[in-house]
C-alpha cells in the first residue's frame, strides 16, 4: 500500500498507508486526520478537501482538470501553485511517499 505523508495544521507529520484506488482525501477521513472536511464526499463540489502538495511531488500528480481548477479558485485558505483538492488525487503506487500539507482552514 502506498504511504502518504500528511502534515497537520500543528506541524505533526503522519505517515499513513492508503489503499490503491482510493483518494488522498479518503486516507485522511479514514484515519481521522483533522484538517480535511470533504463535505461533499469527493463529488468535486465543495472545495473543503484542499491540501498543499509538496512542491517536489507536484510532477508526480496528474494535473487538475477544469472543474478542480475552478473550485480551487474558491478555497477558503490561501491558494498556492501547489493547491489541490485531495478528493481528486487518486492513490496509486506511483504516489508512494507523497507529502501533503493541511491548509489553515477549509471554510
Amino acid at each position, binding site marked *: 500500500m502506498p504511504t502518504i505523508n500528511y502534515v497537520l495544521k500543528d506541524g505533526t507529520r503522519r505517515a499513513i498507508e492508503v489503499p490503491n484506488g482510493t483518494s488522498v482525501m479518503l486516507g485522511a477521513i479514514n484515519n481521522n486526520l483533522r484538517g480535511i472536511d470533504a463535505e461533499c464526499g469527493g463529488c468535486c463540489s465543495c472545495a473543503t478537501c484542499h491540501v498543499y502538495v509538496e512542491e517536489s511531488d507536484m510532477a508526480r500528480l496528474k494535473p487538475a482538470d477544469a472543474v478542480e481548477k475552478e473550485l480551487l479558485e*474558491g478555497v477558503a485558505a490561501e491558494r498556492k501553485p501547489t493547491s489541490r483538492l485531495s478528493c481528486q488525487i487518486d492513490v496509486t503506487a506511483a504516489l508512494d511517499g507523497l507529502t501533503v500539507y493541511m491548509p489553515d482552514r477549509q471554510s
Partner: protein
Amino acid sequence: MAIGDILGELAVGIVAEAVSSAFDGGGGEKKPDIGDGLIIVGGSYAGAQIAATARDAGYTGRIRLVTAEAHPPYHRPPLSKAYLLGKAERDSLTIRGPAFYEQEKVELLLSTPIVAADRTNRTLTTSGGDTLKWDRLALATGARARTLPGTPDNVLTLRDLADADRLRDVASSAANVVVIGGGYIGLEAAASLSQLGKRVTVVEMQDRLLARAATPALAQFVADAHRARGVELLFGARDVGFDHDHGVLTGVRASDAAGRAHTLPADLAVVGIGVSPNTELAAMLGLAVDDGIRVDEFACCIDAASGVAVPEIVAAGDCTRHPSRWNPVQGMELRLESVQNATDQAKIAGATLAEGQAPKPYDAVPWFWSDQFDLKLQMVGLTGVPDVTVTRGDMASNRFSLFHFRGGALVGVDSVNKPADHMLARRLLATQTPVTPEQAADAAFDLRSTLPT
C-alpha cells in the same frame, strides 16, 4: 411580498409574546447533569458533525451516536449519482472513518431505532426495549422519503443505502423506468438510469421541473438538457397509477396537462416526491414542531408549551426548521434539505451543547449541488422569485451562471459547469457585496474586484 411581510411579523410577534408571558419551567435554564452524557439520535451528516464539534469544543462527557441504520454515517448524494452508476463503492462513502469514533470516544449504536423519548426522566427507549439515559440530547433524525400508498413491487424510493442497493439491483435487469417527481433526486436518478442505457420518463405533477427548488430559468435549462439526452418528460401529470402482474410493476398510468391518458411500460419506477422531516421524537419530548423541529439560531429546540428554548436539547439538519435571514419570505422559519445545512447547523448545535451556547448564531449561506449527466449544477442563496435574472457565460455551451436579483440585491446564483462562479458567489453573498446585474452579465468584468479586501 406584502403577505410575506405580514406573515413574517406575525411569526415574530408570536415568539416575542411567548418569551415574555409564558415561562413554566419547560425551557429556559439548563438542567443539572444527572448522568450519561450526550446522546445524538440519527447517524448522518448532522449527527456525525455534532459529535465532532462537541468534542472539538471541549465536551468531555460520554457521547453516544444512535442510529436506525446498519451503517455508520455515510454520504447520501452519491446514491443517486456515482453509486447508482456503479462508479463509487460503499467504502468510499464514509463521512468519518473508524478512527474518528475510537479516538474521539464516540460510541456508535447501529441498527438501533429510538421509538420513545421522555424529557422528565431524560430517557430514550430503543426498539429492543432498552432505556438510554441522557443529560444532553441532539436530534439529528433527518427526513424520510414520501411514498405513494399501495404500490406494486419495483416501485422504489431513494433515501438511504438500503434503498440504493435495492434500486441498483432492480435497475440491473430493468429496461423501462418511470421516475415520479421532477425534483433533484428524481432527476439525478433519471440521469443516472438513462446513462445506464434505460429508457426513462419523468412524470411531474407541476408544469415544470424543480418547482420547489429552482428558478424557472434553471428549470427550463435542465428540462431541455434532459430531453436532449433522451429522457422524456411528462408535465402536469394527474391520476398517477400503477399496472402490475401478480404484484410486480408492469406500467405507470398518468394523464398529462391536456388530459390525455398515457400508459408507460415500466419495470422500475422511482418515486421522488419529496421528504417528510422525522419529528416524532421531538413531539414526544414536548418540543415545538411545525413541519420540522423548530430550533432557534443556536440550534436549541423550543418548548412547545412555553415557546422558550430548551438548552439541553438541540437539533440540526433536514429535521429542523430555523430562523434565517436568507429566507426570501423574511421572518419565516426555514426548512432546508442539504448537506451544507446539515453540516453547518450541526457545528452550531455541537458548540451549543458543549459551551451552553455557540459563539455565533447559525447564519451560513445556503448552497446545494446536483450532478446530472455531464452537468454540474451548483446553487447558492435562496432566490425566491427574482425580479431580475442575468446570464453570465453562454447557455448554449452548458457553461454559465444565472445571477438573480431581488430589490436590486443579489440573492442567488445558479451555476452550470462553472464552479468558479459558484465559489465566488458564495463569498459575494456571505459578505453581502453589492453587485449590479450589468457587472454580473459582463463576462469580461472581474467580479472578484468587488469583494472587500
